[in-house]
C-alpha cells in the first residue's frame, strides 16, 4: 500500500523527467533565448522559427478572456448561494453547477464552434470562423463552476457572528457581503481565481476546436490564434516521427505549460495557507 501511495511521487518525477529530457535535446538545437523571446512560431514550415511568444500570447488571450467571463459570474453565484439563497435553492443549483463542471471539454469546443461563433458573427461580422473570443467564452463557462464552488466554500467559512455584528450596527445586506464577508474570505477567493487561471492555461480541446491554428501575437479576440495546448495537439495529430525537432518542440512547449500550471497551483496553495483568516 505504501508503494501505491509512493506512485504519485514517482509520477510527478516521471512527468518532470520526460518533459525535461526532450526539452533539453530541443534546446541543444534551438537556443533558449530564441525560444523565449522569438516572435515567430513556424516550426513546421520553412523558414523555421521557434519563438514561443505567439503561443504564449494566444494562451494569455484565452486566459484573460475566460477570466472576464468566469470570475465575475462565478463569484456572483457564490455570493448568491452563500449569502442569499435558501437551502432549497442551494440544493437545486449546486448539483446543476456540478453537472456543468462535469461536461467534457470537447463538448464545450463543439458549443463554441457551432453556437457562440455564429452568434459572435451576427454581432461582429468581421469575426473569423476560428476565433479566440468564442474559445475564451466557453473556457470561462468551464472554469465558472470551480470558481463558484471554491468561493462558496470560502464565504461559508466566515462565521455568522461577523455578519450579525455588522447588521447590528446598521449595515445593509450589500454592505455586509462586500465589506465584511468578502474580505474575510479573500484568501479562498483569490486562490480560486488562481486555480481557474491554471485550468484555463491547460485547457486543450475547446481551444483546439474553436480558437484556430494560427500562432500570432494579437490582442484582437476575433482573430484566429493558437495556444500552447492546441499546438501540442496539432503536432500529435500529424505523423511526426520521434527524435525530430518538431517532435521535441511539443515537449519544450509542454514543459513551459507544466511549469506555468505548477507555479499557479503552488501559488494558490500558498495563498490559502499564508493568508487564511483563522476563525474559531
Amino acid at each position, binding site marked *: 500500500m505504501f508503494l501505491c501511495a509512493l506512485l504519485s511521487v514517482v509520477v510527478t518525477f516521471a512527468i518532470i523527467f520526460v518533459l525535461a529530457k526532450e526539452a533539453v535535446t530541443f534546446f541543444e538545437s534551438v537556443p533558449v533565448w530564441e525560444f523565449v523571446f522569438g516572435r515567430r512560431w513556424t516550426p513546421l514550415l520553412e523558414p523555421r522559427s521557434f519563438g514561443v511568444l505567439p503561443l504564449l500570447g494566444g494562451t494569455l488571450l484565452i486566459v484573460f478572456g475566460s477570466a472576464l467571463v468566469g470570475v465575475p459570474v462565478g463569484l456572483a453565484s457564490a455570493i448568491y448561494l452563500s449569502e442569499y439563497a435558501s437551502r432549497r435553492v442551494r440544493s437545486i443549483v449546486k448539483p446543476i453547477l*456540478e453537472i456543468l463542471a462535469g461536461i467534457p471539454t470537447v463538448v464545450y469546443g463543439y458549443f463554441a464552434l457551432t453556437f457562440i461563433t455564429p452568434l459572435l458573427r451576427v454581432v461582429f461580422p468581421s469575426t473569423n470562423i476560428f476565433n479566440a473570443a468564442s474559445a475564451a467564452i466557453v473556457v470561462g463557462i468551464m472554469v465558472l463552476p470551480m470558481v463558484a464552488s471554491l468561493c462558496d466554500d470560502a464565504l461559508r467559512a466566515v462565521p455568522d457572528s461577523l455578519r450579525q455584528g455588522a447588521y447590528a450596527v446598521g449595515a445593509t445586506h450589500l454592505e455586509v457581503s462586500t465589506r465584511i464577508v468578502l474580505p474575510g474570505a479573500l484568501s479562498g477567493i483569490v486562490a480560486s481565481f488562481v486555480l481557474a487561471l491554471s485550468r484555463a492555461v491547460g485547457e486543450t480541446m475547446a481551444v483546439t476546436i474553436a480558437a484556430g491554428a494560427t500562432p500570432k501575437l494579437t490582442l484582437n479576440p476575433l482573430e484566429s490564434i493558437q495556444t500552447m495546448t492546441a499546438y501540442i495537439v496539432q503536432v500529435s495529430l500529424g505523423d511526426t516521427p520521434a527524435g525530430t525537432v518538431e517532435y521535441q518542440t511539443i515537449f519544450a512547449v509542454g514543459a513551459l505549460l507544466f511549469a506555468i500550471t505548477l507555479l499557479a497551483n503552488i501559488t494558490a496553495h500558498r495563498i490559502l495557507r499564508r493568508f487564511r483568516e483563522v476563525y474559531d
Partner: protein
Amino acid sequence: MPALEPSANLARRKRLAGAFRAATMLLTWLCLALLAVLLVHATRQGLPWLDLQFLTEFPSRFPERAGIKSALFGTLWLISLTAVFSIPVGVAAAVYLEEYAGRRRINALIEVSIANLAGVPSIVYGMLGLALFVRWLALGRSVVAGAMTMSLLILPIIIIASREALRSVPDSIRRASYALGATQWQTIRHHVLPAALPGILTGTILALSRAIGETAPLIMIGALTYVAFVPQGPMDAFTALPIQIFNWVSRPQAEFHELAAAGIIVLLTVLLLMNAIAVIIRHRSQGHR
C-alpha cells in the same frame, strides 16, 4: 445628534442592496440557463441523426452511413481497463495515507505530489503516456496504453475522494474493533472499508466519468480517429467517443457537426447516468446513518 437620525441616503443604500441581490441572482440563473441552452442546442442538432444505425455502424466518409460502434466499444474497453488499474491502486494509496502513514517526511512528499498532480493539465498526462507507455514500454497506440495514461490522470481524484470517505468513518468503529482483539488489517478490511464504501464508490464513479470525457491525453498517445473495427484485445488500436466527436467537429461540413452533436448526446447521457448513480449511492448511504 445627526448620527442617530435616519440617514438621508438610507433609501439609496437599500436600493443598492436590492440591486446587488438581484444581480447575483440573475448571474446565477444565467449559469443554469447556459447549461439549458447547451443541452437544447446539441439535442436540436443531433437528435435527427440519433437512431439505431448510428449506434451500430462504423464511422464513414458519408455522414448518412456513419456511426459510433467502434467508439462505443473503444470507450468501454478503455474505461474497464482504467477501472481495473486505477481503483485498487487509488484505494490502497488512500488506505495507506489515512490509516497507516505516520509523520515521516516521505509522507509529506506524497501529500504534496498528490495535490500537485490533481492540478496538472490532462494533456501533460498524455505526453507522459506517449513517452512512457507508447514508446518506452513499447505498448504502441493500444487500449492498454490509453488506459494506463487515464489511470494516472484519475488516480489523484480517486485518492482524494477515498481519503475523504475513510476520514468520515468515526474512530469509535476502529476502537470497538481493536477492543475485540482485531488486528489493524482486520479492522480496516472488515469495518473501516465497508463503512467508507459508499463514499469511495461515489468518488470512483465521478473519476471514471471524468476519464470517459477526456480527449486530449488520448490524442497525445495516438488513439486513432478513423477506426472501422472493434478492439479484440488490450493491445489493439482503438478510438473513443470523445475522439470521434472531436474528429467530426473538426471537419468543415455541417452534416458532420450534426453527427458530432448526436455523439455528444450519447456521451452526455452516459455521463448523466453515471452522475445519477453516484448521487443515488451518496443519498442512500446518508439515509442509513
